[in-house]
C-alpha cells in the first residue's frame, strides 16, 4: 500500500491534473474558513462532501445564461439546457461504464432510487413468499423500503450477518440464497463501518441463484472506480452530494431491459409518449422515470463534479484515501480508551469509533469546538449500532482534500475529550 508522500508522484492518468493536494484544497472554497476561531477540518464526507469551485461555477453559469426547461421548447435556451442535461447523463454513464446512456435515470438521491426500484420492480416482479436479501450493515434507506414491501406484499426479508470486524459473511449468504431469492440489495461500502463488500462475488452468486442485485453505491463512487458492467450489477444507486456534487440529484442505474420492464414510478409530464384523455402511452427508460421538470441545474452540476473527479483520477483518489486511512487508523488507536468499530480487511476511508471516556455525542461536540467536523450518532444504520452494542459512534470520513495534518488535529481534539472527561 502506498503512503501519502508518494501519491503526488503516482498520477500517470491525470496528466496536467496530477494529484496536487495544495491545488485540490484550493478548489474547495468552503475548506478555507474558521469554525469557532479554528481552521475547519471537515471529516464528515460520508454524510456529504464539500463542493469544488468547478461545480459552483457550472451551476451559476447555467442559471446566469442558458437556463430553461428541458425536453420542451423549440427555443434556443431550452435546446442548450436539454443538451447540457443529456450531456450530464452521458458523463454519468461513462463514469460507471453503463452500456448506454438510457440506463441512467436521474432521481433525487440514492434513497429515491431504492424506493423507485422497490415500488416499481418490487411491486410488479415480486410476489408473496419471494425472498429479498439485505445485509446487517445497510443504511436505513436500503432496509425500510424492503420492510414496507414485506408488510404490503408478504415477501420474506432475509439479513446476511456480519462478523465482529464488519465483514459480510459470505458463507451465510450462500446458504441464504435459494430459488425463492428474487433480489439481493446490499451496500458496496458500509457508511457506518467502512467495509468494502465483495460485490462481484455477491452478484455472481446471486445470478447463479437466479436473483437480481441492487447495489447501494453511495459511499463507493467517491472512493473507487466502479464499473457496473464488470460487476454485472442489475441496479446501482448513488447520490450526487457525496460525490462532491449538489444535493437533490442522484442516480439509478438499471440494465435497460429491466428498466423497460418496470412501470412508471411517478406520472405526469416528460415521461409519456402520448396522452389522450382516455389513455396514456409511457416513454421508455430513462424518461419513463423522470416525471415532471427535473433538477436541471443540479444534474448539470453533477456532471461537473464527475468531470472534476475524473480529472483527479479515481485510482489516485483511492491511493490517497487508503494512505490517509492507514495513518488515521494508527493515530486514532494510539488515543487511550478509543475503540474502532469496523476493521474489515477491505475498507474505505471511514472510521467509526467510540471512546471509554465519553459518549459519541459529547465527543462530537468537543471536537466541533476545535473546528473538527465529525458525525456523531447512529449514521442511519441502527442495526449496525445494535450489532456492536452501542447506540452511537463518532465517525471520521475522509475525502479527496483531507490531509495527515487534519488527522493530527482530530487526534489533538480527541485528547481534549480525555482532558475534559478525565
Amino acid at each position, binding site marked *: 500500500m502506498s503512503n501519502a508522500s508518494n501519491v503526488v508522484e503516482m498520477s500517470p492518468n491525470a496528466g496536467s491534473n496530477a494529484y496536487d493536494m495544495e491545488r485540490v484544497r484550493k478548489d474547495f472554497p468552503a475548506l478555507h474558513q474558521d469554525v469557532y476561531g479554528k481552521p475547519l477540518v471537515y471529516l464528515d464526507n460520508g454524510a456529504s462532501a464539500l463542493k469544488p469551485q468547478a461545480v459552483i461555477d457550472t451551476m451559476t453559469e447555467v442559471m446566469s445564461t442558458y437556463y430553461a426547461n428541458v425536453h420542451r421548447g423549440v427555443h434556443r435556451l431550452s435546446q442548450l439546457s436539454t443538451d447540457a442535461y443529456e450531456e450530464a447523463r452521458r458523463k454519468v454513464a461513462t463514469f460507471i461504464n453503463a452500456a448506454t446512456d438510457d440506463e441512467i435515470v436521474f432521481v433525487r438521491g440514492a434513497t429515491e432510487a431504492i424506493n423507485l426500484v422497490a415500488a416499481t420492480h418490487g411491486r410488479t416482479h415480486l410476489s408473496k413468499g419471494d425472498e429479498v436479501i439485505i445485509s446487517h450493515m445497510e443504511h436505513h434507506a436500503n432496509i425500510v423500503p424492503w420492510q414496507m414491501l414485506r408488510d404490503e406484499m408478504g415477501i420474506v426479508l432475509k439479513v446476511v450477518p456480519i462478523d465482529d470486524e464488519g465483514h459480510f459473511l459470505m458463507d451465510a449468504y450462500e446458504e441464504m440464497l435459494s430459488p425463492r431469492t428474487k433480489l439481493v440489495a446490499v451496500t458496496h461500502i458500509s457508511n457506518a463501518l467502512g467495509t468494502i463488500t465483495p460485490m462481484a462475488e455477491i452478484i455472481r452468486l446471486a445470478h447463479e441463484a437466479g436473483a437480481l442485485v441492487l447495489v447501494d453505491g453511495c459511499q463507493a463512487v467517491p472512493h473507487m472506480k466502479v464499473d457496473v458492467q464488470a460487476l454485472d450489477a442489475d441496479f446501482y444507486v448513488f447520490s450526487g452530494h457525496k460525490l462532491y456534487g449538489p444535493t437533490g440529484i442522484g442516480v439509478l442505474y438499471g440494465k435497460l431491459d429491466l428498466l423497460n420492464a418496470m412501470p412508471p414510478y411517478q406520472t405526469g409530464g416528460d415521461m409519456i409518449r402520448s396522452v389522450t384523455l382516455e389513455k396514456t402511452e409511457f416513454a421508455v427508460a430513462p424518461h419513463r422515470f423522470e416525471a415532471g421538470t427535473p433538477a436541471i441545474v443540479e444534474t448539470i452540476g453533477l456532471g461537473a463534479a464527475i468531470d472534476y473527479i475524473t480529472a483527479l483520477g479515481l485510482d489516485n483518489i483511492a491511493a490517497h484515501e487508503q494512505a490517509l486511512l492507514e495513518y488515521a487508523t494508527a493515530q486514532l488507536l494510539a488515543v487511550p480508551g478509543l475503540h474502532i468499530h469496523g476493521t474489515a480487511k477491505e475498507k474505505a476511508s471511514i472510521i467509526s469509533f467510540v471512546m471509554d471516556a465519553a459518549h459519541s*455525542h459529547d465527543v462530537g461536540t468537543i471536537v466541533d469546538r*476545535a473546528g473538527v467536523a465529525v458525525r456523531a450518532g447512529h449514521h442511519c444504520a441502527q442495526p449496525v449500532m445494535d450489532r456492536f452494542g452501542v447506540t452511537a459512534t463518532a465517525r471520521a470520513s475522509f475525502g479527496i482534500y483531507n490531509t495527515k495534518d487534519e488527522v493530527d488535529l482530530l487526534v489533538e481534539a480527541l485528547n481534549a475529550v480525555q482532558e475534559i472527561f478525565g
Partner: protein
Amino acid sequence: MFEDLRELYQEVILDHGKNPRNCHPLEGASHMAHGNNPMCGDTLDIFLKVDEAGSIADVSFFGRGCAISVASASMMTEILKGKTVAEARKLTEDFQSMCTKDDFDFEGAVNGLDEDAVERLQMLSGVKEFPVRVKCATLAWHTMNAAVVDGGEVTTE
C-alpha cells in the same frame, strides 16, 4: 481554550453523567414513558410513583445517552421527589426556557424551589451555547411530562 466546553461540562454534570442517581427501572411505578432522540439514537425510560394527592413519591430513569442527557435525567429525578405533578410540569416549561432563551429569569420563574436545586439545574444552562444539544438536556423532562400527562412515548423530533 475550551472555556464554553468547561461551562457545558461542569464537574457536577460530569459526575451525574458518570454516576447517575436513580438510574434503574422503578417497580410499582404508576406512570411511565419512553423517550428517544432519533438524531443520536439515545433512549431513556422515566418511571414515577405518584400518590393520590398528586405528589411524586418516587421517580427514576433508565437508559443510555450522552453525558448531558444522563446528567439532566439524574438531576431531574433528585429534584422532583416530593414535588407535585403540577410543579413538575411547570418546572419542565421553565427548564426548557432556561435552555433556549437568552434573557430568561430562571430563578425568578421557579420562585419557591430550593436554592440548591436551582443552582444545579442552572448548570445545564450551558447548552444554550450548543443548540443541537438542547434536546439532550430536555429529553428527560419532556419524557417525564409525557408520563404524567398521558403516559407513552416521546421523541425529540
